[in-house]
């Protein structure tokens, strides 16, 4: 072989260039951690739920790293507080993608903070694991969105409530909804459901999230004499509404009350409100007594860490479903051996995953194909007692049928005095 000086320099230069750029970087990245990024409401009205959910995700990160990580690489979890402010989330996710260079994304808890990042992930063709948001993909139609929450459309959420009301003989409804994305999505669905079922809406109001006192609204509902009251509210409002209902009353003709009140699933609120919760029929994701493989072990481990972190001590509502997000990623990555978003999304569309909240399949919109929103009625709750919530009985499951533990108690006034 004829080695000229020019040839040697050329070959050496090309080799150096090849080694220095993409190959070396790919190798460095492969050796580094798998970065998973998200924003989470850790303050503001969803902060209490967000912190509990975050703890569950951290438990999953610890678990998966103990098992060797994903694709043999450790998992690094990057999270920012969005303060329950939807204006913050697009900026946070842009930073996660462009500065932190995360490999995988998880959506913030809640509809309101998630909605603004949907156009971003669709535009960039990224997989987004949803986190207890409701119908944020309904209009965007992003085919790489997968929700972790046990619902699908409005009927999957409200059906159980309306059926219970009809069984109790209710023919009219009052609708009270917060003036924001989640509640409005749900309220629109509820209005359609009511119309289809021939239930007349005798009161229909949206209230602003800054409402201080609900006495006037509850009094107006009482004057409308509805036979069921469907409320869609965020945590702070839910507590104030329950209080106002106890003080003002909604009328003896009301058969059932509740439906979509966020916050009544958070342990501190449940303990604070105590007996004033009795009779309310409200949605939930999990209540003690529902059997899923692995959930009890998770909740026991969660409870220990929650006590140290001073977050929701029981963690029934969000934490298991957030842990499930990790399990979903874990199974999809193990099966596809890649972090490629398109391949992961294709696998998730085609397969069922096993999690601590049961088996999950998704429809083409990325919502649960097998939804199981629980409608449970509070009964026999006493004041200032945390332990009562640990065992079945205080939240009687009315719907869905496969988890049912009792029939709805009506009218509402009677259920309120239940022991």
């Amino acid at each position, binding site marked *: 072989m004829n080695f000229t000086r020019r040839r040697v320099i050329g070959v050496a230069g090309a080799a150096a260039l090849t080694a220095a750029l993409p190959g070396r970087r790919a190798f460095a990245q492969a050796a580094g951690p798998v970065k998973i990024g998200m924003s989470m409401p850790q*303050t503001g009205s969803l902060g209490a739920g967000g912190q509990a959910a975050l703890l569950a995700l951290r438990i999953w990160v610890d678990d998966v790293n103990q098992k060797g990580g994903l694709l043999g690489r450790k998992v690094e979890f990057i999270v920012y507080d969005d*303060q329950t402010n939807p204006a913050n989330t697009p900026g946070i996710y842009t930073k996660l993608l462009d500065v932190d260079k995360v490999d995988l994304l998880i959506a913030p808890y809640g509809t309101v903070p998630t909605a603004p990042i949907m156009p971003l992930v669709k535009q960039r063709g990224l997989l987004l694991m949803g986190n207890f948001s409701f119908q944020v993909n309904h209009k965007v139609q992003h085919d790489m969105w997968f929700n972790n929450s046990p619902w699908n459309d409005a009927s999957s959420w409200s059906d159980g409530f309306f059926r219970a009301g009809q069984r109790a003989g209710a023919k009219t409804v009052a609708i009270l909804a917060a003036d924001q994305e989640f509640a409005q999505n749900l309220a629109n669905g509820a209005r359609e459901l009511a119309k289809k079922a021939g239930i007349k809406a005798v009161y229909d109001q949206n209230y602003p999230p800054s409402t201080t*006192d609900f*006495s006037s609204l509850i*009094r107006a509902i009482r004057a409308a004499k509805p036979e069921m009251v469907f409320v869609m509210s965020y945590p702070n409002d839910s507590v104030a509404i329950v209080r106002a209902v106890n003080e003002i009353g909604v009328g003896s003709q009301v058969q059932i009350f509740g439906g979509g009140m966020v916050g009544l699933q958070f342990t501190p609120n449940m303990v604070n409100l105590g007996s004033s919760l009795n009779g309310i029929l409200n949605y939930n994701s999990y209540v003690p007594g529902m059997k899923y493989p692995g959930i009890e072990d998770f909740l026991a481990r969660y409870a220990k860490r929650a006590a140290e972190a001073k*977050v929701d001590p029981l963690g029934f509502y969000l934490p298991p479903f957030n842990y499930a997000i990790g399990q979903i990623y874990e199974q999809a990555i193990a099966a596809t051996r890649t972090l490629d978003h398109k391949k992961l999304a294709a696998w998730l569309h085609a397969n069922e995953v096993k999690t601590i909240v049961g088996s999950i399949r998704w429809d083409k919109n990325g919502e649960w194909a097998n939804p199981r929103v629980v409608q449970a009625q509070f009964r026999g709750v006493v004041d200032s007692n945390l332990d009562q919530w640990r065992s079945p009985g205080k939240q009687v499951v009315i719907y869905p049928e496969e988890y049912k533990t009792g029939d709805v108690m009506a009218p509402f006034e009677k259920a309120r005095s239940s022991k």
Partner: protein
Amino acid sequence: MIFSLDLLSEALIFGVLLGSFYAAVSIGLSVSFGLLDVPHVAHPAVMVLGSYLTYVLTTYGLDPIAAGVVLMPAFFVLGVLIYRFYYESFERRGTDAGVRGLAFFFGLAFIIEIGLILVFGVDQRSVSARYIGSSLALGDYRIPYRMLVAFGVALVLTFALTLYLSKTFTGRAIKAVAQDEPALRLMGANPVRIKQWAFGIATGVSALAGAMLIVVGPVEPAMDRLYIGRTFCVVVLAGLGSMTGTLAAGLILGVAESIVLMFLGASWAPAVAFGLLLVVLGIRPQGLFGR
């Protein structure tokens, strides 16, 4: 929409109770911003701090309103210290004290908020008392006792402050410093000490307002943000520095909001406060009771 005289009278009752609550949470600001011209945007945060300390005291068995009264002297001292710092750092140094002071008080509000999150977490906190969760039944009417308590506290605060400002020497000096600081200085009084004292009173009153806040509903650390606009609206609507005006402005806002919530469409309620403010300022730029 359902309308009846019964409903209207209930809307008026709820409005008066809600309005007195708005007045009570704004009255401290009426002193600090209305009389002293200090851009105290941390006023609601100080009030929320009062709510949390009330919560702590109630865990020892104290009644929430009594806890608020107990906290007042400590908050008075806190107010004196805050004003002293504000004066030394900003007011004494120049003409742009207002803008810098605004940044200072925003910073103070954030520090209080973050401090509360670190100590108490982000969960809502509430207190229990015999008058919370029950109501006075008058025929078909149901009036929540907690709102009646707020009404009582608002009346007491308004009349106590009005009497103090008009009948005592220091009270009159506070009014004088608001009207003509150089004249007060020429008479041998120290305007800074008077302002310091007045700011202490405003902050002390915030402790009781904070106790009332947690009586009316659960609180969380970021709740102050909800009240910044509303409290400033009440104070400006009243006419800066008028205590009875603050009560009247609170009542007007409360009644208007209650009627809108009950009859016209709840979504319009936030527009009521600022709509009224715009109309009043258009007609009387000095506010309803301002001179």
